[in-house]
């Protein structure tokens, strides 16, 4: 990271480096921020995105915790309520179940239960997604649980740019914000400004303009959707691709405006289709843009099983561009 002068104000960074830079800037700008989690300090996280931070900020601001997810989130809640701005790490999103009570009953509700007297500026980073043959307990996308909990914000960046900007926005937000990263995206590259900038929480991004089909998605599926859009273009379908970026709050307006233009829509996520956030979004679309719709809102998500280990099975399990295209064709009757 000591590449100071020579670097242009905007340069290509990987997703993992963008995360690293965001957290570094947060620690630099907020004297009450600290990073805590399993193997975040000595190892810089098993994904490497805290590399160098222990050295730069010292062991009171970047420290390893025991393998105690409930304790870790509790530490964050208690520290935040009493004036600090914790950045908490839960290594895999699959481990949410270990700390779901702290998240649900403390972090999300404390402010409300206290009549507004407590403020919980917590940023919780975690890692979602399949595709690395890590099997049923290290590949899940459980954001649907979190989006159902009033009091939390939830963001899922698809690009290095958004990863950095959303983490900074999360850390500056006075509410608990869950930042669910994606492990298959760690090596993705993209342009990232050097400065500390925010990607606003609650604002979707139209990553491809299109006229007659809307694909609403987030996290790694944005890239699959963009690829699908290209294939659809060859079929004469001009798809608009919306990267939600924030799931809670959800930028329904951007989604609805697009659907009102295109008259057809589909939601794509890596999470299990049944009960996933796609249901909420599809329900909102048909509710608010009923008369604009020329076809049902489609959904692509993982089928109804745990994530299988075997690479071939996993490949047929995880949503991808081909499945998006297939579902689009089905919807369009093409």
């Amino acid at each position: 990271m000591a590449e100071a002068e020579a670097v242009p104000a905007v340069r290509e960074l990987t997703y993992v480096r963008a995360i690293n830079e965001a957290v570094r800037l947060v620690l630099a700008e907020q004297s009450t921020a600290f990073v805590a989690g399993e193997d975040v300090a000595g190892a810089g996280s098993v994904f490497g995105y805290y590399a160098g931070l222990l050295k730069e900020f010292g062991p009171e601001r970047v420290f390893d915790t025991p393998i105690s997810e409930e304790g870790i989130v509790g530490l964050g809640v208690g520290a935040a309520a009493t004036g600090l701005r914790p950045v908490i790490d839960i290594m895999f999103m699959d481990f949410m179940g270990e700390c779901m009570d702290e998240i649900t009953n403390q972090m999300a509700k404390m402010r409300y239960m206290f009549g507004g007297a407590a403020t919980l500026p917590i940023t919780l980073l975690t890692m979602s997604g399949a595709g690395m043959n890590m099997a049923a307990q290290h590949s899940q996308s459980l954001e649907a649980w979190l989006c159902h909990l009033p009091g939390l914000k939830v963001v899922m960046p698809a690009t290095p740019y958004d990863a950095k900007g959303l983490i900074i926005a999360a850390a500056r937000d006075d509410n608990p914000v869950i930042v669910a990263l994606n492990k298959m995206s760690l090596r993705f590259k993209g342009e990232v400004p050097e400065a500390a900038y925010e990607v606003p929480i609650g604002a979707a991004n139209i990553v491809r303009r299109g006229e007659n089909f809307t694909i609403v998605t987030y996290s790694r599926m944005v890239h699959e959707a963009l690829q699908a859009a290209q294939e659809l273009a060859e079929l004469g379908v001009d798809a608009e691709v919306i990267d939600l970026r924030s799931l809670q709050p959800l930028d329904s307006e951007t989604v609805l405006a697009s659907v009102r233009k295109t008259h057809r829509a589909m939601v794509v996520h890596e999470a299990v289709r049944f009960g996933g956030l796609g249901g909420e979004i599809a329900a909102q679309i048909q509710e608010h843009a009923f008369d604009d719709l020329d076809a049902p809102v489609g959904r692509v998500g993982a089928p109804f099983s745990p994530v299988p280990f075997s690479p071939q099975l996993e490949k047929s399990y995880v949503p991808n561009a081909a499945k998006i295209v297939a579902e689009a064709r089905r919807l369009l009757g093409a």
Partner: protein
Amino acid sequence: MTAQPDDATLLDIHQRMTRIRIFETEAGKLMEDGKIPGALHLYVGQEAVAAGVMAHLSNADWITSTHRGHGHLIAKGGEFGRMFAELFGRSDGYCKGKGGSMHISNMELGMLGANGIVGAGPPIAVGAAFSCRFKQTRNVAVTFFGDGASNEGSFHEAANMAALYKLPIVFVCENNGYGEYTPQANHQAVVDVADRAPGYGMPGAVVDGMDAVAVYEAAGVALERARDGAGPTLLECKTYRFFDHVGVRGMGLSYRTDEELAEWQQRDPIVLFEQRLAELGVLDPGAALAVREAVAAQVQAGIEFAEASPMPDPAVLLDDVYA
């Protein structure tokens, strides 16, 4: 701090205990009269613990509490009016009526909330203790929890982290012999929860939770240790609740014998303490009665304040979800 309490402190502890006793007794009646909705877990019988510990704390020290939290809040300085208002669900309640008995709290008093989740307090208190150290203060966190709560994984994780980081925190286990209707012998094989302390690398101590002076002294040692940066202590106070698990009479189950209750009532912490104060010449029975009467009047005033407080306007329903 490890010294014996001076006269002023003794009177202060007496005041705190009396405030709890009368508030809780009245709250029980109000509940039975249908004036307090929801679940109400009363602290009567355990007053020496809250009072003995809280006599050491300032508003800049943090506590986490339990579902049985009024006693902790009163001992930490809670006002009757705002407390009753909260129990009634009124807009002048400490939580504007949104929390109720199980979430009553006040950040300015350093009270991080009663909590409906058994075992939720310790991890939050670890965070508060971390804060105290991070800010380089000599402030501490104290987490109160029951014998039943000591079997939650959250207690374990918090205790280990506190000892690992040598945080300024005291774990106060109020062992009242029961988790709801389950006696301790049916929920853990140990007799002393304090036996768990060495497994985390912290000292453990058992103290008579009906003896406010004993609690005060033991808490003083633990708190001094914490403020000095020497790390946490697990302080177990043996105590008893005089009312049922919930409300006064509870569900009417016979899980405790009348004899057992009577035996513990013989050791009523306030009666014991007043005897002692009388012996020491610090407070004679007449003066004690005067304290009780004064507190009773404050309690009545608190109830009146609460009754006059308006119900929250439905328009506030969605306020306070986000900052």
